């Protein structure tokens, strides 16, 4: 029998590492399928209202900060890049490189959250908020000037906060898991035989990235062509 049936990382209930890796990968893909359906609920709701109230949604979107979002897109895509290199390093058994790439991934993810924090702070200052009392400022004045229903503008903002919020929670979980991977590989628990642990985490990370690639056009770019005279 090959080494794949005697590896110390082989769990007792699997026959060999091929089976173990395939199971782990399939398990994570199935979890990703549930994640897709999780966001599908949100996207379905968003689509409904977007088709019902296009003018309000685009006007509301035009008040979001595309610059922050673009920086965040760059950060997140780059973090996926480092994550992919981390799998490669794990497969090749290069532990130092693996740890460096994982740390880079976590750092880029954290940077995303920091930028997100600045963005939220700006939104708060400018009263880009959905609550009946907190909604106001320029976005309200602009919507009223255009003769739009401010209720539906607030509806868009509900989506904005819920979708970016849920995405942020996913990312924070991702950062935590990546840091756990760093600890694991530091203690030598991720030999090449066990690279699928890294791969499984990377699958999750890529999904969070891919979802952002859809949130970007739906939330930030929807009204990007509307010009405001600031």
């Amino acid at each position, binding site marked *: 029998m090959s080494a794949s049936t005697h590896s110390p990382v082989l769990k007792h*209930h*699997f026959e060999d590492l091929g089976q173990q890796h395939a*199971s782990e990968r*399939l398990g994570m893909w*199935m*979890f990703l399928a*549930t994640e897709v359906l999780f966001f599908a609920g949100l996207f379905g709701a968003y689509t409904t*209202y977007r088709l019902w109230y296009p003018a309000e949604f685009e006007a509301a979107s035009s008040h979001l900060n595309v610059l922050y979002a673009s920086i965040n897109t760059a950060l997140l895509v780059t973090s996926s890049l480092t994550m992919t290199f981390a799998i490669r390093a794990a497969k090749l058994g290069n532990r130092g490189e693996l740890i460096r790439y994982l740390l880079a991934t976590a750092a880029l993810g954290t940077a995303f959250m920091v930028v997100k924090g600045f963005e939220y702070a700006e939104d708060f200052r400018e009263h880009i908020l959905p609550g009946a009392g907190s909604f106001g400022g320029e976005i309200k004045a602009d919507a009223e000037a255009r003769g739009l229903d401010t*209720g539906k503008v607030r509806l868009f903002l509900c989506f904005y906060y*819920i979708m970016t919020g849920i995405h942020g929670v996913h990312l924070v979980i991702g950062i935590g898991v990546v840091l756990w991977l760093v600890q694991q590989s530091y203690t030598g628990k991720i030999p090449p035989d066990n690279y699928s642990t890294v791969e499984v985490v990377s699958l999750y990370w890529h999904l969070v990235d891919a979802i952002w690639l859809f949130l970007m056009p739906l939330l930030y770019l929807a009204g990007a062509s509307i010009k405001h005279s600031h």
Partner: protein
Amino acid sequence: MSIAVIHGGLAASPPPPEPEPATPNYLNNNYGIWSWLTTVDHKRIGILYLISISIFFIGGGIAAGVVRTNLLSSTGAIVTEDAYNRAFTAHGVLMLFFFLIPAVPAVLGNFLIPMMIGAKDLAFPKLNLASWYVFIAGAACSTWAILAGGIDTGWTLYPPYSTRASQANVVPGILGVFISGFSSIMTGLNIMVTVHKMRCPGMTWGRLPLFVWSLYGTSLIQLLGTPVIAVTLILMGTERISGVGIFDPSIGGDPLLFQHLFWFYSHPAVYIMILPGMGVVSEVLTCFSRKNIFGYHAVAWSSMGIAVVGFMLWAHHMFVAGISFYSALLFSFLSMLVAVPSAIKVFNWTATLYRGSITFQAPMLFALGFVVLFVIGGLTGLFLATLGTDIHLHDTYFVVAHFHFVMVGGMVMGYFAGLHFWWPKMTGRMYSDWWSRVAASIIIVGFFLTFIPQFILGYHGMPRRSPNYAPEFQIYNVMSTAGASILGLGYLLPACYLSLSLFFGDRATANPWSATGLEWVSASPPTVFNFEFTPVVVCGPYEYAIGVDQLGRGLPEPPGPGSADDPASRDGPTGPAGPMKKETEVVG
């Protein structure tokens, strides 16, 4: 066991020697509460689930008792309207989310799936244990919400009532449901990966027991449906907490959107509840009629058909809720489609009995009860899927009776059938044959008495969730409550004789029903890793006619009358009644 024993079991046909009483098994390999709370053994986790959901079944049953007793009087016999509303919500939440959904997948599925496909454990044992803890955390949260003031929204949680008007503990209640949803996803994911990747050699998709097929379909729904309810509950919870949200009609939101999202999960969720029951019935009917299942592929694929089509018809809950006319037409049409695979199953089960050799032990009585009650439950569903009749019957007791026929008549009967069928395997003990038959009979009779009057009430228009009702409805409500007390008694009996069997029951042999599945190859109770060897499957799951199990070995003598002169059951494949002597018959 040794290699020699295996060879002996294969070559000569006598059944393998019974395990010594003191054989190490999953129950006695270590002791103490801690060994249970940290176990990653799928069998022990199944037992943990069994204990937990039994508690919620009792809790939900008490709530049902309050509801039914209160309905004795047309103005409420015992509690206030407020308390009644909390009682029926508690009944719905506990029974659906914390009993029916985990019942068969998490108890019997956990215990049996690895054994049926010849694996040592589920693919992710730690995830499996985590799912139980998550379930307990969610259940604790919801139970706290129910006990500390209660939830008064009904289990359907429709906004704007749930987001704006209700004064009750809605947020902790839905938080518990949200958390336990993860448990459901974990169990489903584990079972799906296990079925894909852990099947033993020879266990092809066409040789999987139908129980595995049905749980595969169930898991598919759990995986793809549960996340949608999760996000729906998040949206609803944030709207309730923050006061602004996407279901709020005052800012252009659509309360029906919640219903769409809710039923996208909750309609398939009824298939989470009924499909595993169907799987159990396929196992039990074949075993106690000593027949191959009629139309294996039809039954297997109808499970998948139900799982997939079940996602496309949720809005039949919303025909009069204000959805578009054309959408209602579409959903009604699609609803008719899901009735077809259910019908196929019933016909195949009936045909399986043809020319069988049928005995009526408790699992068989429960399984037959399942079919009888499910036929009514399923057929009355057609009235609700038909647009013209749903207008009147929607939200009346007709609906209540219909889904209780499916959920209780179907699923709970299926669960009891499975529990009685595999109890010897799980505990190593036999329960009282006589008492179990009595219990099955009482439950079936009590069930009819409880829910048939509710069909009449619904047909006459009595709305559901109403503690006050028109006086002319009272006589039927009294009949229903009387039936419910018989039903309640019926449910108490298994609790007694099953508990007693743990201490006083006869020791079970490895294969007391003389069944063919791989799980019966293992000892009763099974050893820690289920099998002493990696099984190699050589045939399909229901070779009762030939009298071989899936390893191709002869079966022990089946229990029941007339078994002494059953040569097929003793002599195995090479015996006088073995496959070489037997012509395969295909009728039709």
